[in-house]
């Protein structure tokens, strides 16, 4: 919806507004209810943001206020953990306003949010998030995060793309560490278990005008999770999806915005109706392979001319999510597979090229890469009237590269292998 500029009120007029809403007595997670912002909205121009924001307070972990729960939850047995069903006792939240910057960080008992019906996140999808995990090392009992700087950089990039406020990443990592420490008892020390962390940033301004949100809420919730494949790998089958697009040039596909997800549910259900697990998102007339479901995709093929083994994934051209696992797989491959004679390349693989490789017996392996599963081996891809076999033997559920990557990355995450990517929570 667009509204005449007149509607996007300057401060004076806004200050005259009276709430017709009754303040919610029970919750103070959001600031004391303010029906209007007392200052100008966040600057319209993204270009001047840095300057304006520089004068406003950033996230300050030293000001953290902690309110501990008086009703600690019972721990769910490891075997009963379901992704996203159980949450820890506490959550972290930090409010932001255009006039006052980032407010006092708070750790409070896990609780509901209370939002006005006119809050912009409900109408215009002013929202972005991250997915990351905390791991407990069996060696020294330490809690660790995996490349949290990457998640912070991406959350900032997502925020900027959707006119939400940015912040200093290391400050949020500091606070996330404190939340993990406080709820440490929820993190199983068994290998494969971890604490899934979901930093989320939403626009909270109460207005129907489409404008940069003048207030926002950053919150982090934590959910203990078990291994993605509790009984070992289970290879998935994909629908090569050409009737719908996930992302496009000039769009927001490279950012982790809510806007990228809701529209993908229908194609996923359609694929599921055909007995296929995920969408393999093709793009353009050339049918470039972009991503799989909500993961990046890797293809291993033998070069037609030279026979050299190649690990390929789509380039970061603005339509591809900049996956932390993607980046890790590439870095490890360059470090550990290239010396074994592999070639590692970020370039598009066309669907036809994949089919040709299969036909020639050159398709070695295909797998998805993401935080939840680390790697997701692919058995088959349904494309037009064909079923492409991605190289797994009937008796195996994962290829060699996927298996190696999972072991390497997990080894680093759990502190088995000392590595700068694994960041200990102090």
């Amino acid at each position, binding site marked *: *919806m*667009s*509204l005449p*500029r*007149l*509607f996007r009120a300057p401060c004076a*007029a*806004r200050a*005259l*507004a009276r*709430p*017709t*809403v*009754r303040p919610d007595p029970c919750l103070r997670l959001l600031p004391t*209810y303010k*029906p*209007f912002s007392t200052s100008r909205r966040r600057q*319209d121009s993204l270009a001047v943001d840095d300057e304006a924001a520089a004068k406003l307070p950033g996230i300050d972990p030293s000001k953290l206020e902690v309110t501990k729960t008086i009703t600690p939850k019972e721990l769910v047995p490891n075997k009963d953990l379901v*992704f*996203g069903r159980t949450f820890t006792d506490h959550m972290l939240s930090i409010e932001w306003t255009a006039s006052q910057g980032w407010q006092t960080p708070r750790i409070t008992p896990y*609780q509901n*949010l*209370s*939002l006005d*019906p*006119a809050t912009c*996140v*409900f*109408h*215009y*999808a002013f*929202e972005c998030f991250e997915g990351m995990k905390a791991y407990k090392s069996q060696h020294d009992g330490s809690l660790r995060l995996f490349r949290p700087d990457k998640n912070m950089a991406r959350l900032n990039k997502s925020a900027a*793309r*959707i*006119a939400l406020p940015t912040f200093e990443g290391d400050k949020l990592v500091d606070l996330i560490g404190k939340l993990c420490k406080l709820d440490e008892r929820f993190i199983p020390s068994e290998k494969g278990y971890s604490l899934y962390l*979901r930093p989320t940033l939403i*626009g909270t301004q*109460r*207005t*129907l005008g*489409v404008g*940069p949100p003048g207030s926002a809420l950053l*919150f982090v*919730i934590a959910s203990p999770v078990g291994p993605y494949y509790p009984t070992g790998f289970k290879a998935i089958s994909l629908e090569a999806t050409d*009737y*719908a*697009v996930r992302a*496009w*040039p*000039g*769009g927001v596909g490279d950012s982790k*915005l*809510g*806007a990228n*997800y*809701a*529209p993908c*549910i*229908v194609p996923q259900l359609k694929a599921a109706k055909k007995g296929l697990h995920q969408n393999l998102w093709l793009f353009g007339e050339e049918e470039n392979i972009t991503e799989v479901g*909500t993961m990046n995709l890797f293809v291993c093929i033998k070069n037609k001319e030279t026979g050299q083994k190649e690990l390929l994934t789509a380039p970061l051209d603005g339509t591809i999510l900049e996956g932390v696992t993607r980046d890790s797989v590439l870095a490890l491959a360059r470090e550990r597979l290239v010396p074994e004679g592999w070639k590692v390349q970020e370039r598009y693989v066309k669907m036809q090229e994949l089919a040709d490789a299969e036909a020639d017996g050159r398709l070695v392996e295909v797998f998805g890469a993401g935080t939840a599963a680390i790697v997701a081996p692919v058995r088959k891809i349904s494309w037009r009237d064909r079923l492409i076999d991605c190289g797994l033997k009937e008796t195996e559920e994962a290829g060699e590269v996927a298996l190696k990557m999972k072991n390497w990355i997990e080894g680093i995450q759990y502190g088995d292998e000392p590595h700068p990517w694994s960041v200990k929570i102090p």
Partner: protein
Amino acid sequence: MATEVKNSQSTILRTAGPRGLDASVMIKNLVPESEQQRVPGPQDPVRLSQNATTAHILTIRWTADSGWEAPQISPYSKIALEPTASVLHYATESFEGMKAYRGYDGKLRLFRPRLNCERMRISNDRVCLPDFDSVELLSVITTFLALECPRWLPDPGSNLYVRPTMIGSGSALGIQRPREALFFLFAALFPQSSSAKVSPGIKLLASDPEQIRAWPGGFGYAKVGANYGPAMTAQAQAREAGCSQTLWLFGEDKLVTEAGASNFFVIWRAKTSNEIELVTSSLDTKVILDGITRRSVLALARERLTASADPDVLGDLKPLKVVERAFTVAEMLDVSVEGRLIEAFVSGTAMFISPVAMIRHKQQDIEFPMQVTETGLEAPVSHYSSRLKGWLEDIIYGKVDHPWAYVIEEKVS
């Protein structure tokens, strides 16, 4: 009432629950009139905030297991959600924009409201929110407005902005079809534009290739949150360039699609035929919102502005041809350079019909013919658009009887 409705692609995935939406089981928990806020006058600055709402909110809960619960009208209040609510992470949300109009005859009207209800079904279908019977939804909306409007919309010739919204309200960190949803609707008191006031015209910034609003196979045709927040950076660029909205271009050919979140129309003289044409982008690639005002403009223009129209209706205007097709910004530039531009305007529920003064474009600005009004103000020439606007106003404010106007009977308290 018109009932033209486009069927959505993926009807097989409609998520109708076991219990359908039923308007007859309404629950009301009302604020006594003595405890309600005062009603601001049409020019009250409180309206500028876009924040003032009426006293009540309409909510309807839905769950995958039991379907639609009884609609409720209750005091306007906050919505409590788990931090894991699907809408906050995955943008499972859709909305509509409608207005309730107080006619000069004192009657309350909506404009083609069935179309809003049907479009919301299409939007919901695209983001996996639940389906509903649009007749029932309209009935619920009607009940709400019949209750609110006697107090909150008293002035003839004024309107109330109505915002139906649907969100995935259930807890879901996995990306999946929402198992719980909430429909809510509230009415906002917006500033009332005086029809006597002359608009200086909208300035549009043609989008650069780094900003593409929608793509075939995407969801540009649906009124879902995902189309709006991501448009914000382009909007900021427009503001910086001294414009108020983005003119969304698409593809290497720079096809003209929408303006801001409104549909875009241009009137020009065709090069070879010398005919006057009213041109707007066609809907075939599904990157454009099927605007209700857009449809109405096209229908009125076909009926009253073409060569076959009643000469008395046409009056001093020359007949034009209505054209829905893809057109490029280069084509508009040519027309502009050759002096064939007549006027341009945007259409939408909030913007209504607003003339365009200029389009800022990298290579060259496109300026539309301007005129000086009797009061000495400069404004875009708007012979056709002001005629269209007048006809629409006659319908929504009840100056004429028309099937597009949907009259709501109010209880006299």
